[in-house]
Every structure is written in structure tokens, then in C-alpha cells.
């Protein structure tokens, strides 16, 4: 009603039926019509009263008692469809239902939000191809016994050595007290036949040479560190044993490092 009145400009006093309440005097629907007849006009003569407001939505309401509250049965819960039944009895159960549904939705919503947030944030971590670069798969069958093979892994040299029985026995028999960085051979290998270490000298980072040195393992030419066949430091300036990376054997013939 209000927007219509605003747009109609000159006609607005005649279209604002609610003005009647404020001013206390009845504004005639048509100029020259008798004061106080507005309700009666529509009862006796149809044309004048209604034609002035034919463009107004639904016509003009005269009394607040004419307002009909619409029937909301389509939206009511079943317990409240009967207007002759008090709403108090079903009140508990309705509230319980609403709060349970709200609570469950909240839990699901929080979990969903957490999942979405985690997915977005973890998308900033390393991608699959980068992660793939972090692993290397090696066919062990190509490495003959007694031989050490070098691979490039994560930018560093990776030594995989197929040890002989003699070497295994020797390394297992070494006394801990003699080692600068005491570690038993069993703790450095998963399968004693294969020693897998990172080929970076723990002294200052040079690459040791395989099958060299006094202990049947590796020798670093930079400052003369000797490592044994288990990659442990025996002689020289290096403080620690060669690093053993994480690896696993998906089957007997393959190892995945990283």
C-alpha cells in the first residue's frame, strides 16, 4: 500500500486508507464524497469506492477485524493441525525433535567444515608428483652380490649394497665399544642382505667411495673417513654413521625408499 501511494503522487491521500487511523478523520476515497461514508460506500454502491483503488493489491481494508490470518496448515507439524487441541501437550516432543535435528546437523556441519578446511589447507602441502619424487623404487635383482649401486634420491646419492654372508657376519660381530657412534648392524638394516644408506659423509658432506677404505665399506676421500659395510664410522673425522633412510620391501625383489 505504501509504495503504491508514494508512486501515485497526487492520488496518495486518497489511497492511504491507514491514514484514517492516524488523523482521526476519514479521508474520502473520491473528492467530494461524503465524510464518514467510506465503510458504507462499498456496501451500498460498488463503483465509486472500488474503482479508485482498483490498482491497489487486494482492495482497501477498512477494519483490522477484516484481516484474516492465512491458513498455515500446509506448514504445520501434524500434532498442531487440529485447532481444537491444545499445543501444550506436544510441546515437549516438538522441541526435543527440533533440538535433536539441530544438534545432529551441527555435529555433521562442524565435521564437514573441518574436512573442507583440512582439504584446502592440505592442498598447500607437497603435491603428488613432488611426493612421488620423494620415493624411489629399486629392482634388487639387478644388484649382484658384493656390489654397491648408487642412485639419485631426493637430490642425494643413495647407496644400496648387496652384502655377502661374510660381510654380514663381520659387521654383526663388531663390538659396540669400539664404535664412535654405537649402533648394532641389526638396528641399521631390515634385511641383512641389503644395506641401504645415504651416501653423504657425516663430516662435511662429501660422497664416500664404495668398496674402499680399511673396513670393507666406504671411504670418504675429502678428509679420510672410513666406514664399514654397515655404513658405520670407524676411522676418520666423521662423527656419525651414514644415515639410514626409511625403506620397505613390498616384495623380495623390490625396495621402496622414502
Amino acid at each position: 500500500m505504501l509504495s503504491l501511494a508514494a508512486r501515485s503522487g497526487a492520488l496518495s491521500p486518497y489511497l492511504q486508507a491507514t491514514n484514517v487511523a492516524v488523523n482521526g478523520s476519514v479521508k474520502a476515497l473520491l473528492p467530494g464524497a461524503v465524510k464518514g461514508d467510506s465503510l458504507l460506500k462499498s456496501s451500498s454502491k460498488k463503483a465509486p469506492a472500488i474503482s479508485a483503488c482498483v490498482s491497489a493489491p487486494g482492495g482497501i481494508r477498512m477494519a483490522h477485524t477484516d484481516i484474516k490470518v492465512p491458513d498455515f496448515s500446509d506448514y504445520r507439524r501434524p500434532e498442531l493441525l487440529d485447532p481444537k487441541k491444545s499445543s501444550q501437550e506436544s510441546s515437549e516432543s516438538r522441541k526435543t525433535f527440533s533440538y535433536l535435528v539441530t544438534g545432529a546437523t551441527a555435529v555433521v556441519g562442524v565435521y564437514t567444515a573441518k574436512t573442507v578446511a583440512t582439504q584446502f589447507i592440505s592442498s598447500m602441502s607437497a603435491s603428488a608428483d613432488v611426493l612421488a619424487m620423494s620415493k624411489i623404487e629399486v629392482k634388487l635383482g639387478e644388484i649382484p652380490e658384493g656390489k654397491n649401486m648408487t642412485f639419485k634420491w631426493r637430490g642425494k646419492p643413495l647407496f644400496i649394497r648387496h652384502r655377502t654372508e661374510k660381510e654380514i657376519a663381520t659387521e654383526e660381530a663388531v663390538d659396540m665399544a669400539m664404535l664412535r657412534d654405537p649402533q648394532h648392524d641389526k638396528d641399521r638394516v631390515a634385511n641383512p642382505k641389503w644395506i641401504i644408506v645415504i651416501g653423504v659423509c657425516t663430516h662435511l658432506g662429501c660422497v664416500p667411495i664404495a668398496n674402499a677404505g680399511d673396513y670393507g665399506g666406504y671411504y670418504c676421500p675429502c678428509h679420510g673417513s672410513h666406514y664399514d659395510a654397515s655404513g658405520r664410522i670407524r676411522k676418520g673425522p666423521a662423527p656419525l654413521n651414514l644415515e639410514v633412510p626409511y625403506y620397505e620391501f613390498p616384495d623380495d625383489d623390490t625396495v621402496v625408499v622414502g
Partner: protein
Amino acid sequence: ARDQTWVCSDASSSPILLSLRRGQATVTYAQSLLGAPETRLTALDNGLRIASEETGHSTCTVGLWIGCGSRYETEKNNGAGFFLEHMAFKGTKKHTQMALEQQVESMGAHLSAYTSREHTAYYMKTLAKDLPKAVELLSEVVQSNALSEADIEQQRSVVLRELEEVEGSLQDVCLDLLHATAFQGTPLGHSVLGPSQNARTLSRQDLVDFIKSHYKAPRMVLAAAGGVTHEELVGLAKQHFSGVSFEYEDDAVPVLSPCRFSGSEIRMRDDDMPLAHIAIAVEGASAASPDIVPLMVANSIIGSYDITFGGGKHLSSRLARLASEESLCHSFQAFHSSYSDTGLLGIYFVTDKHHIDDMMHWSQNAWMNLCTTVTESDVARAKNALKASLVGQLDGTTPKCDDIGRHVLNYGRRIPLAEWDARIDAVTPRMVRDVCSKYIYDKCPAVSAVGPVEQLPDYNRMRSAMYWLRF
């Protein structure tokens, strides 16, 4: 023993200034409670009840209270009771309108009537000695109304005019709309006035049918208060009201079915109005419920306020203090309309368009306080205020007569002031908290708003304010 006090013109020897009771009333509160004469109740053979209180005044109010109202009407005849009230004084079968008016005027009496949702009353205020004439006229008005076609047509325009005029009384509009939305789809949602369409189309037959279905002796009470003796009144009733029917056609006794309360809202927005009238209510207690008294005490805690109050920040009601200090509203009142099986417990306020949000917030805050943290001093103060208002309202024969009529219809007997007093005394803060939580806490309210109500919060916000997360 009552002290005899008298005032002399010579102030220096005036006993009242020297007496120990100086500054006190001559009648204590307890005496005023117990000193009220008992209301006597008898019933005629046809079920019509007669109740009276003999106060010894030289005037009296006598009337007929009938247990029918807009709640008994259907959509098609909504407004019949109100129309009938208009027709009531337009002449009976024995007296024309002129003759009736002349009879009443020559006695110097006032004849009036009111219709509400569950009660209708026709009553007369007159000198005590004119009681017989008054009862005779009342019996004619109720039983043998002329209901002439010409008068009906003429009254149509009067009713329509009254419908237009009531639009100006925004408090009535707001509370009518509150009932319409709270009890939507049920007879309690009908306004007493009825829609304008019915005012134009109700026929004489509709009115006759209405009388036939509802003006029955068991639903009527002849009440009187003033200088009347009960025996005289009973005699007059036997003489004039024995003929009132007590049987229904087809034995169809109208039974009131419960009315469903719907938490809902209705907004009649008009930005041209200067003030917004807003009412928020929850389903309350029925008239005969034991929770009535704690709820009355709770309403007294919230109290009422008008911008003309001078208390300022010293007003006792917290909401009134806030209203005064922050200019939250022009007026507010806590109300409780109770019907035979349900009720509306709410707060009505009038404010300008920039303070609606705050006023609604603090009103609901006051409700939450009632449910959770009401204190001993709040309750003590409210009990006193309630007792004072209950006693103070009955300050004439007409309020007393009205009280008698409504009580007998609602409760079957008159509840004496002493009983109200005892029930009020029995209220404790814990009781107020429990009862208020039962009716208010986390319940869906019904809201009605008229005027520039843009600032009124969304219904979901108001619903959320009906509980506190801190509990």
C-alpha cells in the same frame, strides 16, 4: 476495637494529633480484608445463579453476567454478540426505546453493557431503593428484546462507524491482532467486534438464533453489590427470571473445545504512524489454574510504566528503570488475559521507531530474569503491589458487582479478598521462577506489531531470546 478519632477545628487540642494512632489508618489491612461482607450465592430451579454482596451503600449495581462471548461465535456470525449489545437498549417487547430510556433516566440510573471473548454483561447502576425496577428492566432487555428490523438496519451503520473508530485505538487493534494470530484458526482468535462483512449481513434471524443458543439460565448470573439484601434479590429473580430457558435445541449443549495456541507474529507496518504498538505474549494459565497467582506476582514484578511517571531511576521495576533512563518507550504494561482453559501472558509496549529493538530486548530480558534470578525483595515488593491493586480496584459497587459476576462464571463462587491475600502470601521466589519457566522459558511467543515497526527483530531472533545459553 476500633479507636474513635475525631478532628476538632482547634488544632492544639485535637486528639488526632496526640493519639498514638497518628499517621495510621483507622482500619488495618487485615481488618479491611476480613471486614468485607460475605458474598451470598443461591441458584434458581432453572440453574440461574444469584450472587450479591451487601455493602450498605445507598446505591447499588445489579446486572446479568452471561457466559457467552465471541469465543462461542463462528466465522459466519462473529460479531453477533457485539451487535446484540448494540440492539440491547433499542426497545423491548414491553417498552419502546423511548419508553425504556425514559424509565432509566427518570430513576437517574446508568444502563450499560459489555461484551468480551467469554463473557457478556448487562448491568445497571442505580439507587438501592430502585432495585426492583432495575431488575425488571434488565430482565426485559435480556429476555424480550424487540430486535426490530428497522433498528437492526440503523444499528448496522453505527456498528460500522464504531469499527472505523476503533482503528484509532491502537492498543485495541494491537491486542486484537495478538489474539488473532496467537489463536489463529480457533474461536478465541475472533475479535469481539467481528468483521465488517458480518456487520453488513447479520440478520434478525442470526441474532435470534444467537440468543436461543447461548442465553440459557445455567450460564447466567444475576449479580449485585451495594445496598441490596440477598433475599430481596432472590425474590426479584424468581419473579422475573424463572422463565429463562435451560434446555438446548436437540440437546446440543455448546461445549467449548480447547483452543490451540500458535507461536506466530503479525506486523501491520505503517511508517506514517508516530508510535509503534507492540505486544509479545506466550500461552498463559487458565482462570481457574493454581498458577494464576504466581503469574500475577510475576507480572507485578515487571509492572507497568508510562512516560509521565516521575520515579525516574528510582522506579522499582527494573524494566521501568531502564525505560525511563534510556527513554526506551512511552509506556509498557505486563498483562495476563486468562480464559476458561488458556490465557495470554505478555508485555505490551508503545515506543517510537528507533527504540523498538532495545525495548523488545529488555522486555524479554525481564522475562528471563523472572525465570532465573528473581529475588526475595522483588517478590516481596510485587506481592505488596499486587495486594494493593486487588484491594484498590474494588472501590465501588460497580467494580464489586463485576468482580462477583465474573468470579461466579469463572470459578462458581466469589473468591474473597482474604483468600487472594493468603494465596499471594504463599508465593515464594522459587515458585515464581518455576511457574515462569513453565510458561515462558523456551516457548514460542506470539507477537503483534502495529505502526512503524521496521526495527522489530525477526521472529527467529525474538524466539532465541526466550532462553539463555548461560543456563
